[in-house]
Every structure is written in structure tokens, then in C-alpha cells.
């Protein structure tokens, strides 16, 4: 068992390589076969491995391919480490990835750069798998940067539009800022442990450092910096909405299901370090809470359906951070998985709609699509219900409920975090159903062109089922008490310590969450379906419009960073284009030239002057010698 492990990332890489080398020369069929097939086989292997893993339940499987390098004891390997945590991630990556690949064969069918698209997608899947399977942090960093690269390439996939290129660079650079922090964290880890091997660090850290250690805190915060960048959390969240410039399957795969949750993976993976530092834990939770609120409000005001989903992703990842921040590791990972399903589903549905409406993304120009695109409508509804945590029948309800519950019940949680989460849930259901009502109800505003066929519909249906049923593997203990998921993760991630004596109030909180969710849906119904006049009246209010503009621009973060960093940097570097240090040397050269001109002007070419010069010189010398 485990010999096949290396194939999981290797297959997508091989697919990418093949497509890069031969993509231009082979038929589209073959391109799809390679692109989809490589991920499909990887998914199949994952399934096989998963079944074996579940049946034998080892702590982990390690496979070393070769030693990367070895310098004075710094010897990371190209080695894979499979445990329950990476299993969950691999599962989501390969399966959701596979479905999205299938979907892409139809979505991208008209595109001229078909092969390039699949090459990048395969490369992404490979890198992402590398990230979650890495047994040391350096290899993780490789995957980490690799997905960044793919994200860059895919956001800027339609490269002819400068705005897309801008969004792509923005994404890369902003995540790179976080990566820098993470890299420094790695330097510190290496300095203290002499290795970057994750298991070694995890075991040694707990022995070396006690809780509250300052070094551990700094390392944890630096790693958090990396996670924040990659996961689009405050304060590095601004790249994610712009990243929607890429094709929709990309948004579904990279910017919803997998890459943006890399931060979650990192924190969960390094949970030992985080647990050593309450400050860092609080920071994680606080960032999560702040982000989920800010992104939620921003999502309320977006018109572009993909931007709504992007902000929603930021917000949902915020929930995951919230969970991680209170030590509810498995709850965070659970929400990651469920979110992967329903958010991919929502994006894919959005993609189907966009494709049907001739690349129209503005929700104000949509409407009444429930009749025209029934399958899309129902699957979208499932996804939306899950996102809005519709009580009992949606997977999102269970995952989010668990997080909210642990905010109060977990010993690191507190009431403010809970309230933030609750408010976030309320906003979530408003903007989710605002989307539903605007898109699918009301009158039809744009003609429906392309009707989705099987390649689009099948992934939608599968994801719909998963978004609906995925929640039932982990049910609260007051009904069902299914703990398959957290059990599965328990060898890797410690369970959260629950404060005693609160569990009898759990149903009240669940009820509260249900009410909040339903009332959000009701408000959306009221404002966007039943009485649009209410919106009109809001539009007339100055304050509401100002708030709308503020939220619409994502709380002004873009402008802030623009004035704080981008403009000064660009200004300074443009100012210094000619390199002022060079002018120092030019100045020296000018002095020399000036002296040259001065002295050479004495060479008049008139012989009499030279004679006169000789005479004057003779007089001077004689006079001086006489005077001396």
C-alpha cells in the first residue's frame, strides 16, 4: 500500500507536460482525454488508496522519491506524506478537480487555447496535490508557489485583455507577500529545528516550547501571514475578487474549492505550533471573524455574479479560520470539504449561466432563468441552500453549525466570535438568495443561448448530491451524533476541548442558527422578489448609497493599498528610472570633461601663443629662482 502514492501528483504533472509539449499538435479530443484523464486516474487512485486507508487505518503513509538536496544537514526530500488530513484534501482536489475538468471540456470548447488551459489546470492539480502531500515544509512551499503560478496563469488566461493580466499579477504579488512571511517562518523553523520535516517539527515543537512561547508565536504568526495571503483573508484579501477574471472553471477549482483553502491546510497542518501560541490562535480567529463579516457585506452589494461568489468564498474561508482559531480543527476542515463541494457547484452553475447568456456576468441583466435552465436552477438552489446553511437538509448547515457551536462551546471561543459568525450567517443567506432571486426569478432579461449538455450537467448533479449529502457524515450529537469525519481526522488533528455543561443548550443555538438563516432568506425574498420597491427606496437614501459604494469597492481596501503601496512604489521607481547613482558617476565624468575642455582650449593652434607661453614660463621660473 502506498506505492501508488507518487502517481497522484505525478499524473497531473505528466498530463501538463504532455500538453505543453504536444498540445498544439494533437486534436481537441486527445487534449481532453489527457487533461481529464490524468486527473481522473489520479482520482481513481485516490479512491483506491482512500479505501485501503480507511480499512487499515495507519497513522500515515510516507513515500520518499528522492532526496531533494542535502546541505550541512538541511536535507529535505521529495517525499509524500499521506494521513487523514491530506487524505481529505486529496479527495476534494482530485474529485472536485476531476468534475471541473469534465465541465471544462464543454465550457472551454470554443477557446483557441484549449490545450494551454488544460495544461495549466493539470499543473495546478499536480501542484496542489504536492502542497497537501508534502512531508516537509519546503516541498509544501513548492506546491504553494506552484499553485500561485497556476493561479496567475489561469486568471490571466485570456491574456489579450490587460485587465485580466493586471488581476493575475495582483493575485500573484499579493499572495507572494504572504509567502514571504511564510518563508521567513520557515527560516525560523529551520533555525530552531534544523529541519523542515513536518512530523519532526510537530513532535519536537511540543517538547521544546511551552505554551505561550514567543518564538513559537512569531513563527505561527508568520505562517499565518502565508495562509492569509493564499486564502484571501484580511488584510490580503483584495486579489480574490479580481481573480474572477479567469475562466469560470478556474474560479471554481482554484478560487473556491482548493487553492484558497491552502491556508486552512497550512494552519491545520502546523496546528502544533499554533496551539503553542494563544496569541496566534486568537489572531487566526479574529482574522476569520473580521474577514467573514467584511466579505459578507461586500458580497451584498456586488452585481457581478462571480464577484458575489468570490466575496462569499472569502467569507466562507473566514469561517474556516474562525474554526481553526478556536482549535476546532476538524470543524474547519469539514467546512473546507463541504465548502469545496457547494462553492464549486455554485461557480459551475454560474459558469453555465454565463455561458448561456453569452458571457454576461451582471446579475441585473439576468432573471427568470429557472424555466430555461432547470437543472442549473435546482443544483444552484442546492448549492445556495448549503451556502446559506438552510436548516437540516443542507450540508452547509451542519458544517457551519458545528463551527458556530464551537465558538461558544470550545474553550478558546468567546461570545463575540460567535456573534460575528452568526451575523455572518445572516448576511450570507441574504446575499445568497439575493443571487438566487435575481438570477432565476423575475422576468427574463437576456436571451438564453447555449443550453448546457451532459459534460456540464453531470458534474453539477454530482456536486449537488455531495452538497446535499456531504453533511450527513458529521452530525451534531443531539441528533444523529455521526462523527465519521472527525473520527477519521482524529489521529492527525486533536479534538476541541468542549467546555462542560453547555451541551444541553446546543439545540437552542441550532435553532437560532436556523432562524437566522431562514430570516436571511426571507429578507432576500422580500427585497429582491416580492417588493423590489424596498430596494428602490434604499437607493434613494444617501447613507445607504454611500455604504453601498463603500461595500461595493470591497471596503476600500484596493484604494487604500493603491495609495499606500502601489502608487508610491511606482512613482518612486519611475522617478528613479535613470538611476540617480549613475548620475554621480556621470557627474564625475562631466567634471573630467570640463577640465578637459578647459585645458584643451589652451591649445589654440597659434604658434605665437605657444612661444609667448614659453617666454612667460621662462620669466616665471627665472623670477622665482631669483626671488628664492
Amino acid at each position: 500500500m502506498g506505492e501508488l502514492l507518487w502517481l497522484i501528483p505525478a499524473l497531473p504533472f505528466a498530463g501538463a507536460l504532455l500538453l505543453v509539449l504536444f498540445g498544439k499538435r494533437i486534436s481537441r479530443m486527445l487534449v481532453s482525454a489527457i487533461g481529464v484523464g490524468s486527473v481522473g486516474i489520479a482520482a481513481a487512485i485516490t479512491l483506491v488508496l482512500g479505501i485501503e486507508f480507511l480499512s487499515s487505518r495507519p497513522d500515515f503513509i510516507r513515500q520518499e522519491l528522492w532526496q531533494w538536496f542535502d546541505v550541512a544537514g538541511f536535507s529535505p526530500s521529495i517525499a509524500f506524506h499521506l494521513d487523514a488530513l491530506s487524505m481529505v484534501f486529496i479527495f476534494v482536489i482530485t474529485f472536485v478537480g476531476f468534475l471541473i475538468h469534465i465541465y471544462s471540456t464543454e465550457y472551454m470548447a470554443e477557446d483557441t487555447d484549449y490545450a494551454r488551459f488544460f495544461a495549466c489546470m493539470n499543473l495546478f492539480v499536480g501542484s496542489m496535490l504536492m502542497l497537501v502531500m508534502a512531508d516537509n515544509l519546503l516541498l509544501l512551499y513548492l506546491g504553494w508557489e506552484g499553485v500561485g503560478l497556476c493561479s496567475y496563469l489561469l486568471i490571466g488566461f485570456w491574456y489579450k485583455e490587460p485587465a485580466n493580466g493586471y488581476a493575475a499579477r495582483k493575485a500573484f504579488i499579493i499572495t507572494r507577500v504572504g509567502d514571504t512571511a511564510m518563508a521567513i517562518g520557515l527560516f525560523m523553523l529551520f533555525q530552531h529545528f534544523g529541519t523542515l520535516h513536518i512530523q519532526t517539527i510537530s513532535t519536537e515543537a511540543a517538547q521544546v516550547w511551552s505554551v505561550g512561547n514567543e518564538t513559537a508565536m512569531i513563527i505561527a504568526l508568520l505562517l499565518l501571514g502565508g495562509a492569509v495571503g493564499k486564502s484571501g483573508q484580511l488584510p490580503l484579501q483584495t486579489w480574490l475578487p479580481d481573480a474572477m477574471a479567469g475562466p469560470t472553471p478556474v474560479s471554481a477549482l482554484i478560487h473556491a474549492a482548493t487553492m484558497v483553502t491552502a491556508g486552512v491546510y497550512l494552519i491545520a497542518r502546523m496546528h502544533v505550533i499554533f496551539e503553542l501560541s494563544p496569541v496566534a490562535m486568537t489572531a487566526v480567529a479574529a482574522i476569520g471573524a473580521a474577514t467573514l463579516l467584511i466579505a459578507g457585506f461586500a458580497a451584498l452589494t456586488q452585481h457581478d455574479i462571480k464577484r458575489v461568489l468570490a466575496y462569499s468564498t472569502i467569507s466562507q474561508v473566514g469561517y474556516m479560520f474562525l474554526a481553526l482559531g478556536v482549535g476546532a480543527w476538524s470543524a474547519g476542515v469539514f467546512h473546507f470539504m463541504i465548502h469545496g463541494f457547494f462553492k464549486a457547484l455554485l461557480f459551475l452553475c454560474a459558469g453555465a449561466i454565463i455561458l448561456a447568456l453569452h458571457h454576461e456576468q451582471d446579475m441585473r441583466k439576468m432573471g427568470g432563468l429557472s424555466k430555461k435552465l432547470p437543472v442549473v436552477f435546482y443544483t444552484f438552489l442546492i448549492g445556495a441552500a448549503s451556502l446559506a446553511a438552510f436548516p437540516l437538509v443542507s450540508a452547509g448547515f451542519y458544517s457551519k453549525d458545528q463551527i458556530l457551536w464551537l465558538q461558544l462551546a470550545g474553550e478558546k471561543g468567546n461570545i463575540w466570535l460567535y456573534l460575528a459568525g452568526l451575523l455572518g450567517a445572516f448576511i450570507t443567506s441574504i446575499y445568497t438568495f439575493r443571487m438566487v432571486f435575481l438570477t432565476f426569478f423575475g422576468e427574463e432579461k437576456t436571451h438564453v443561448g447555449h443550453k448546457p449538455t451532459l459534460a456540464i450537467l453531470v458534474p453539477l448533479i454530482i456536486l449537488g448530491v455531495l452538497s446535499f449529502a456531504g453533511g450527513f457524515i458529521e452530525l451534531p450529537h443531539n441528533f444523529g451524533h455521526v462523527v465519521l469525519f472527525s473520527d477519521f481526522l482524529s489521529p492527525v488533528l486533536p479534538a476541541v476541548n468542549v467546555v462542560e455543561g453547555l451541551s444541553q443548550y446546543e439545540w437552542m443555538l441550532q435553532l437560532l442558527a436556523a432562524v437566522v438563516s431562514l430570516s436571511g432568506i426571507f429578507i432576500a425574498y422580500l427585497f429582491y422578489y416580492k417588493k423590489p420597491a424596498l430596494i428602490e427606496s434604499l437607493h434613494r437614501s444617501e447613507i445607504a448609497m454611500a455604504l453601498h459604494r463603500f461595500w461595493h469597492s470591497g471596503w476600500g481596501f484596493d484604494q487604500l493599498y493603491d495609495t499606500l503601496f502601489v502608487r508610491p512604489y511606482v512613482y518612486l521607481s519611475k522617478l528613479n528610472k535613470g538611476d540617480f547613482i549613475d548620475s554621480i558617476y556621470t557627474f564625475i565624468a562631466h567634471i573630467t570633461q570640463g577640465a578637459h575642455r578647459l585645458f584643451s582650449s589652451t591649445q589654440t593652434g597659434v604658434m605665437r601663443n605657444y612661444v609667448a607661453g614659453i617666454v612667460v614660463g621662462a620669466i616665471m621660473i627665472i623670477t622665482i629662482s631669483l626671488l628664492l
Partner: protein
Amino acid sequence: MTAIPMETGLLLAGILFMLGLISVMIRRNIIFMLISVEIMLNAAGLAFIVAGSHWAQPDGQIMFIFILTMAAAEVSVGLALILQIYHQLKTLNSDAANFMKG
């Protein structure tokens, strides 16, 4: 044979030299400049003769012979140069030959 004071002889050499020098400085005609240089050379030779006669040694006269040789060589080369300059520039104006001015 009454000796002439050396100062007088040297003064004469000095005056002749000065006259040649003035001429070199004011003339533009390159042949005149050559003539002036000859005057100066002659004056220098005179100074040697005066000094040699003062000490009753042959060395002064030998120096004069060397100066003479040098003057002869100088005049021949100088005149050849003048001819060249005249052919190239069609003038004897020394100021016209100022291609190497800075």
C-alpha cells in the same frame, strides 16, 4: 689684445636673442619665424663663444659648432616643412596650420 668684458659679450648675445624672440612672437609668416629662430640660435652660439673666449677653452667653440650643425639641420627640415605647408594650405600664415587646436 685687450680683453672685452664677458658681460658685454653676453649682453650682446642677450639683446640679439631678445630681438629674435620678439620677432618669433609677432610674426605670422612662417619663413620669418624661421629666420627669427636662426637669429636666436646665433645669439646662443655667440654666448658660448663669449664664454669660451673668457676661459680660453675650446669647449665654447665646439658648442658653437654643434649649434651650427643643429641650425643647418633645422633649417633644412624646417624649410621642407614650410614647403609642405605652403602646398597644402596655400599660405605661409602659421595660424592657418591649427588643425590640432583643442
